[in-house]
């Protein structure tokens, strides 16, 4: 059973994908690491970014965090505020 995760995009990830968010279909039980792998396969230029983290419900998430389709998920490229 697949689930669809909507992923918010910011900064360079938004430029690479060309939109503010992207839908990603993943098998049930998929984790943050699987999401990153899938997206990097779909958009190879994401692999060039110095580091790419994932936020789940607006908190930094580890690679082994299991994703639910209710989560608010975002790609976090290297921050550069200030």
């Amino acid at each position: 059973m697949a689930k669809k995760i909507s992923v918010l995009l910011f900064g360079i990830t938004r430029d690479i994908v060309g939109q503010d968010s992207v839908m990603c279909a993943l098998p049930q039980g998929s984790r943050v690491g699987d999401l990153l792998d899938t997206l990097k396969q779909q958009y190879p230029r994401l692999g060039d970014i110095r580091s790419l983290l994932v936020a789940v419900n607006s908190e930094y998430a580890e690679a082994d965090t299991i994703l639910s389709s209710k989560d608010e998920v975002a790609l976090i490229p290297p921050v550069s505020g200030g």
Partner: protein
Amino acid sequence: MIAITTDPIDYSSAYRYLQTGEAGAIDFFFGIVRNKTSEQAVDRLEYEAYDNMAIKEMQKIADEACRRWNVLNYVIVHRKGTLLIGEIAVLIGVATPHRADAFDACRYIIDTIKQTVPIWKKEVFKNGEVWVNAHP
């Protein structure tokens, strides 16, 4: 007070907010759009934020600063959108009884913001643009 705003940052109202009878020291840090980066002339900056997460992360930083130092009051305001040279991108203000705490807490806050808060800056030059820190 923690905020992300598209309006110009008003440091006078920040100062008034910080002011309290117990404060012997206030330190303000202004991060400002410079006219060049690594000798390239900058035309403008574009800031973008993941607002609700950025606010949460800034709150964590402020809470940690209050644990480490005797902070009476603080202001953290980050601007987003298009910023021209000379405009204030971020203002950190800290009021404390004594000055060492004001300097230490203010510096901790800006240093940590630059590491953890999901805000992104694109430098726009005459001929090109670059998301800062994005590539090795």
